[in-house]
């Protein structure tokens, strides 16, 4: 499925899931998941509510044990990888110690790390140098999130795992966050992040894993994922629209008509368009465009769910928040 069988560094993969499942009673949260991460990749983990992203990250960080299958991090067990500082992680559900200052907290984690970086550097890289003397329990949501990020980068960890890292950040902080993230990647680190901001995955990741119901549905670059969803969007105006005729077009995926305005999705835009022209139609204001990652993502998971994917992204986010609540 993936075209990146050969990582630049070769050797053991940074992370490998081999046929990993996690079952809670009747629920199969993660279902025979297999994947590999290579050194230097920035990988986004995408999936709707209940897709098994959080459970997968929890298992990668040794917070939970797989029911079956095996996870290796640099060829070692997740627990050992975490405790030897190979992984720096930031979880949505990770709390912070109250009643201490930001500097004290970051200093603590640096002390615990086998290869610590200077605390001032970490504070600067996480963009919280100005908060060093503030008490942790007196910070805003976005500030807290940046402190969590600082804890993930207190040492020279080779793998950075981030669960919804920019939640509660405003647009500007989000921008700054990804700028600092790119600096980490430039130093040869591997980054795995779960996100529900699809445009963020599109911009920040060079590889996307789409999961649904605990299974891996797609694995590729953002461009490949968009292609995988197959569809292109064709829009035009047409006088005397004949719905029955349009529905008969080849490779049609979806059709919307508003008076003379037609929007359709096609898995092969060339064929659809030629059929339209061959039938003698002369559409005006013709536009052919690729689907965004968001539609592609919805299309992929919808194919899997076998239900129509008209779920608005807002609803997706809302569901996701609820998922977070119950995880706590």
């Amino acid at each position, binding site marked *: 499925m993936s075209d990146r069988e050969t990582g630049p560094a070769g050797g053991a993969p940074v992370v490998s899931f081999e046929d990993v499942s996690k079952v809670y009673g009747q629920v199969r949260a993660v279902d025979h998941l297999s994947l590999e991460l290579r050194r230097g990749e920035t990988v986004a983990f995408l999936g709707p509510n209940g897709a098994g992203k959080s459970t997968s990250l929890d298992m990668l*960080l*040794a*917070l*939970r*044990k797989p029911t079956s299958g095996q996870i290796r991090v640099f060829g070692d067990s997740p627990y050992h990888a*975490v*405790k*030897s*500082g190979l*992984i720096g*992680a930031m*979880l949505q*559900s*990770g*709390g*912070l*110690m*109250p*009643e*201490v200052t930001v500097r*004290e*907290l970051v*200093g*603590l*984690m640096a*002390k*615990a*790390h*086998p290869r610590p970086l200077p605390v001032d550097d970490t504070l600067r890289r996480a963009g919280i140098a100005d908060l060093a003397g503030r008490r942790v329990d007196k910070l805003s949501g976005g500030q807290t999130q940046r402190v*969590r990020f600082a*804890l993930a980068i207190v*040492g020279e960890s080779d793998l950075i795992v981030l669960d919804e890292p920019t939640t509660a950040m405003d647009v500007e902080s989000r921008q700054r966050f990804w700028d600092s993230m790119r600096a980490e990647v430039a130093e040869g680190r591997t980054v795995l992040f779960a996100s529900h901001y699809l445009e963020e995955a599109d911009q920040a990741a060079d590889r996307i894993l789409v999961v649904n119901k605990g299974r891996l549905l797609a694995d590729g670059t953002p461009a490949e994922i968009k292609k995988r969803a197959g569809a292109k969007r064709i829009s035009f105006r047409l006088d005397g629209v004949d719905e029955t005729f349009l529905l008969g077009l080849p490779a049609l995926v979806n059709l919307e008509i508003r008076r003379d305005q037609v929007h359709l999705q096609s898995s092969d835009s060339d064929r659809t368009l030629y059929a339209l022209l061959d039938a003698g139609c002369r559409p005006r204001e013709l536009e052919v465009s690729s689907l965004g990652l968001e539609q592609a993502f919805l299309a992929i998971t919808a194919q899997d769910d076998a239900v129509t994917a008209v779920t608005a992204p807002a609803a997706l986010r809302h569901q996701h928040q609820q998922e977070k609540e119950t995880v*706590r």
Partner: protein
Amino acid sequence: MMGTLTLARLEMLRVLRNKRYLIFTAGLPAALYLALGRSHGTSYGVEFRAFYMVAMASMGAFSGALTGNAQRISQERKDGWVRQLRISALPASSYVIAKILASLVTLLPSLVLVLLLGRFYGGVQLPVPSWIIIAVSVWLGSMIFAALAVAIGYRFMPDTVQPMTMLIYLLMSVLGGVWFALGGTMQKIGQVLPTYQIVKIGTHVIGGGGVPGSAVAIIAAWLAAFVILAAVSVRSTVERI
């Protein structure tokens, strides 16, 4: 190890920054001793003022170890701080070790204050070894309650922990004969409690006797039981952190 000690140091700082905790653990026993410490009479065969010094020192130590820790541990699990530590490079045992170390250190002000009041306000006169035995038995006895706090904090949510520790605190105080000396049936029941035995070591030593072996045995049994309970609680909640 450095990480664990740093964590313990931060835990101590937190406790000392928390005024309410200091008032409850150090302020309350001292205030009670100031109010009642000059009363006349005898309890368990020693002067009341000497008994009450040991009793108040014990109360401050065990209430501090129990109520504060259980509440914090439960809350920190709920807030995800325990989870955050699990995904850090800190050794898995750091959290509990740091809590118990911090608890032992932060109980010292209360303990020292009450003993000083006993000596200079209550006028209790004792040879140096007796002072040391009293201080050490109360101090180490508090570890029983630190272990119990871990067991409770790991197993229950904060809103359950509050009434639970309050109930245990009351039982241990009243039936343990900490608030007032017991007699008759109450004493027979109370004898099995660690609080009773901690006070008993103190009063025995004040009365010129040695440290009763039975008291040490009972205290050790409670400690072992609560340490096991704490370990079971920590293990059984591994996947629910």
